[in-house]
């Protein structure tokens, strides 16, 4: 019998698989939280989860509406401050993985969470950076999680809130930044970045999709490996943990 799972669940599982035991992970809310808790409850029990506002390693029993919800701070080992998390851990260089979502990204993994439209003329202002710019600038690597839509995967984005590889090549290094995006996880595929051109590259396709499905629903053409494998599906245990333990109300996976 084939395992039943949703695209969101596969995204969360794919995100979890990117995280290694003992890593320090800075996460925003939503799918990154599910992925991080899933990793921690399976193969990465010694991982440390950080929320920018001053929360280390929480063990929530209820889902929250956002980082400002005390539900997601529950049973943390440390409750401190921005200076402590974003300064003394992130800016100091101790964050292994930053886990970010966004409105739009481009072939170099630059992320927009600020505005849609033309910033010099008519635009809709959205959320802005929060800690996203800091995480994208200072983490050793970042993982981007995003819906797979042409209006979100664009050749050029309206506003670079959080730097990826900027204009590609060594332009990120030249701006004085280390790290950079390692993966973009969508509901159709997983992408990496070419080590030199820094161009987004299809690494695997989620079961049930074809390469045409992936490429035809993007706003730009990524590089494609010669043999693109299918993404490994979730295990029964991973799906159970997501549904029964991590997000029983379906708040993050909805």
């Amino acid at each position, binding site marked *: 019998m084939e395992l039943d799972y949703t695209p969101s669940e596969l995204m969360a599982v794919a995100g979890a698989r990117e995280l290694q035991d003992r890593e320090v992970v800075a996460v925003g809310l939503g799918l990154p939280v599910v992925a991080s808790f899933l990793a921690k409850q399976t193969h990465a029990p010694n991982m440390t989860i950080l929320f920018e506002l001053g929360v280390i390693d929480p063990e929530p029993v209820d889902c929250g509406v956002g980082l400002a919800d005390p*539900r997601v701070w529950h049973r943390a080992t440390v409750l401190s401050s921005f200076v402590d998390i974003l300064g003394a851990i992130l800016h100091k260089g101790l964050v292994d993985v930053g886990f970010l979502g966004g409105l739009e990204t481009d072939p170099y993994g630059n992320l927009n969470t600020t505005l849609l439209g033309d910033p010099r003329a008519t635009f809709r*202002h959205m959320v*802005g950076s929060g800690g996203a710019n800091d995480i994208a*600038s200072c983490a050793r690597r970042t993982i981007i999680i995003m819906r797979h839509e042409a209006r979100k995967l664009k050749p050029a984005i309206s506003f*670079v809130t959080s*730097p990826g590889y900027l204009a590609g090549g060594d332009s990120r290094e030249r701006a004085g930044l280390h790290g950079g995006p390692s993966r973009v996880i969508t509901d159709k595929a997983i992408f990496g970045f070419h080590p030199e051109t820094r161009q987004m590259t299809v690494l695997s396709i989620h079961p049930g999709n074809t390469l045409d499905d992936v490429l035809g629903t993007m706003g730009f053409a990524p590089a494609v490996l010669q043999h693109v494998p299918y993404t490994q599906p979730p295990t029964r245990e991973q799906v159970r943990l997501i549904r029964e333990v991590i997000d029983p109300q379906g708040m993050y996976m909805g």
Partner: protein
Amino acid sequence: MTKLTTLAEAVGSIPSGAHLALSGFAISRCTMAFAREVIRQGIRGLTISQCVGAMDMDLLVGAGAVDRVIYGGGSLDRFGRLTCVNRGIESGGLQAEEYSSLSVTFRYLAGSLGLPFIPIRSLRGSDLIKRIEEQTGSDVATITDPFSGESWLTLKPLLPDVAVVQVQCADQEGNARILGPRWDNPEQVRASKRTIVIAEEIISNDAIRQNPEQTVIPGLLVSHVVELPFAAHPTSVYRAYDYDARQIENYVQAARTPDTFRAYLDHLVYGVKDHQEYLKRVGGIDRLDPLRADPTLGY
């Protein structure tokens, strides 16, 4: 020396045009009763700063009390965006200097420590820094690290006139505790010329002296202390009460257009004479009691 006073008097100490650092983060520990009183008193032309823009900032902007915001982006979490702030930015009516959480934190930190400038790795290569450079050439600069020879972006300290901080408890002198994460509040207080503390509860100076490690705000930085239960409503105060989802949704609905927002203000700000009347109007004790935090969970 007691600094205990009424909300009206504390708000009355703020001149139009002042720069206020507010303690809210999205929908938690927002200075809501304070913001409503600022609006009622007709104080205008404010600059509001916050690492992450929150409901207190949005309400003040929506009421036309604010000319300028300095912040790192923000939202009302899942309830929605900072609609009033966004409308101000889109229309050009609000000067918004938009950073990241850490860059605003570092600006407060520099202010709090008397540093003339502070280097930061964030912002480089982004459109955020391009915009900030266009708006205020004078708040950021690039200098050379004298030790490595590398180029570093440096930020100017942020020095608000007044920090307004919602806390769980304080004594009459302003020594205050913050339970839960403190986000940018310690640095806001220390960077500002003075602080107004809004406390859910006043505790004795003796209680403060029994656990002085827990004092986050030293009284010597505080000018006014206001005891005001449910002062952050409809946002939450950890270990005191939960957010009021219905009232935040009500706000988000109202904020969609200037007209509906005006009606909201007429009903819940201008239409009540003080915080006590506000609490009655949103449902009084029957509505508020169920929001009280479970002592174990803290929400």
